[in-house]
């Protein structure tokens, strides 16, 4: 369908619409080779004389103070990220390359190499190694790899969806979606019709819809970016418990912001339950109250565990090549095709999981919202 009289403008617009689409498609295609891009654990090999698969996997999954891109011989290529600390009434700003990848201390701080604070910034004594036993709490607001990745993905997502929105306002309601909006619109309709409308009373859907849509696209987009092996992807954003916790806290807050009287009545005076379950020992209210807090915890853990597990399995298959390669080149060569096949298979599975987990998180949020705003008459 063409708008009459302005084919040039139209063509130009469709080109603009397609740029993000092409970009997305490129990311989707390229992720399948992430295996090979991430397999450069030369560092570990050298240090320990062998290949420590567990360490490699954990290092890839965890957050970091710099963004490691590649190793070339002994040179680490990584993007230094800002470290922001608040310690004993003083702010500290510097870039993470001062730590020299965790080897050095800077201004009395260093990245803990072991102990229960492993990987976090700790205060050290003047020798630069021993942790300060009298150190008070360090407020660490550093822009870590995950935080930086969130900035990138959030900006990309906003740009993407706003450019889609612009085609909507330009083309008006009398034209079928095309280009990127033709890709996005089914997802929007999916969230609206199959998630929101199926869980929330019809007249209250609209107030939750923008939140649910943002939630769905944020998780889905970050899940996909997490599968892209190289910068700006590769950070394990949705596999980070801080991120999933924040997301579920948003759901929790939104839920209780909109919750009506019926919801609280349901918790403290559950209808249809015998009185002796509520008084004198408030068994039901306690159970319901626990349920209130269990919901966000379950959301947090489900997304975190699913995404982390997926990354771990993929990295495990890749590591297999190097573990066996360490015992003999032939073994490594023999196992690599099998590993690659499994990794490709897992990547496809992870694509599916990326969607399913975004769907599940959004759907459960919608169900909780539906519980929070039941119809007044019961």
């Amino acid at each position, binding site marked *: 369908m063409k708008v009459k009289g302005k084919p040039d403008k139209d063509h130009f617009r469709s080109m603009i619409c397609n740029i993000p689409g092409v970009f997305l498609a490129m990311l989707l295609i390229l992720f399948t080779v992430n295996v090979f891009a991430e397999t450069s654990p030369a560092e570990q090999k050298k240090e320990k004389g062998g290949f420590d698969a567990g360490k490699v996997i*954990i290092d890839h*999954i*965890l*957050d970091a103070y710099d963004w490691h891109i590649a190793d070339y011989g002994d040179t680490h290529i990584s993007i230094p990220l800002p470290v*922001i600390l608040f310690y004993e009434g003083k702010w500290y700003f510097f870039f993470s390359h001062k730590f020299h990848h965790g080897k050095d201390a800077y201004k009395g701080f260093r990245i803990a190499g072991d102990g*229960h604070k*492993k*990987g*976090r910034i700790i205060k050290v004594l003047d020798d630069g190694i021993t942790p300060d036993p009298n150190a008070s709490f360090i*407020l*660490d*607001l*550093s*822009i*870590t790899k*995950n*935080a930086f990745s*969130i*900035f990138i993905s*959030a900006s990309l*997502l*906003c740009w993407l*969806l*706003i450019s*889609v*929105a*612009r085609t*909507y*306002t330009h083309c*008006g*309601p*009398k034209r079928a979606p095309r280009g990127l909006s033709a890709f996005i*619109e089914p997802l*929007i*309709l999916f969230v*609206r019709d199959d998630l929101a409308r199926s869980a929330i009373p019809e007249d209250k859907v609209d107030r939750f*819809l*923008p*939140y649910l*849509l*943002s939630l769905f*696209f*944020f998780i889905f987009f970050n899940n996909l970016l997490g599968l892209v092996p190289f910068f700006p992807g590769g950070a394990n954003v949705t596999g*980070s*418990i*801080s*991120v999933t*916790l*924040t*997301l579920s*806290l*948003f759901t929790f807050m939104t839920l209780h912001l909109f919750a009506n009287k019926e919801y609280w009545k349901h918790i403290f005076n559950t209808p249809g339950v015998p009185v002796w379950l509520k008084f004198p020992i408030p068994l039901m209210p306690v159970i319901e109250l626990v349920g209130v807090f269990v919901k966000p915890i379950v959301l947090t853990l489900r997304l*975190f565990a699913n995404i*982390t597990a997926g990354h771990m399995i993929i990295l495990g298959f890749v590591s297999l090549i190097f573990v066996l390669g360490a015992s003999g080149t032939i073994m490594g060569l023999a196992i690599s095709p099998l590993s690659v096949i499994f990794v490709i298979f897992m990547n496809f599975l992870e694509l599916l999981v990326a969607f399913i987990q975004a769907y599940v998180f959004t759907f459960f949020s919608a169900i909780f919202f539906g519980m929070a705003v039941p119809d007044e008459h019961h």
Partner: protein
Amino acid sequence: MELVTPGIGLIFWMTLSFGLVLFILRKFAWKPILSTIKEREAYIAGSIRDSKRIQRELAELDATKEKLLLQAREKADELIQQAKKDSEVVIQKAQQQAREDAAKIVEAAKKSIFAERKAAEREIRQQIVNLTVDMTRRVLRDEFSDIGKNNQYVEKLLEDIQLN
């Protein structure tokens, strides 16, 4: 342990970013997109409703058209029939009139012919009388010039009368 311990820094930045994402997308993406989709849905539903209504109306119109056509055809037939009848009457009348006129004309012609003849007859009679008188005069003049002969004739006439 590190894996499942939330970090304050990341939570802080995540809250900030996600809050901003929520705000920006709500204002600049979802509002226009959702309203456009809603409008389009209303437009499509309206179009379907309209098309159904138009179809129904068309069917009704079709029926009406058929009916009207039928009526028109009947009316036309009727009119033609009537016209034929009328024309026959007119023709008959005209013929009658013509006949009457013709008769009148003939009558008049006859009368005038008769009158003409009468006049002609009278004239011819007049002419004959005149001629006779003339002839008689001439004969008489001639006869009376020879009295003797006349006398003879008269005598003969007299004789004839006596004989009678």
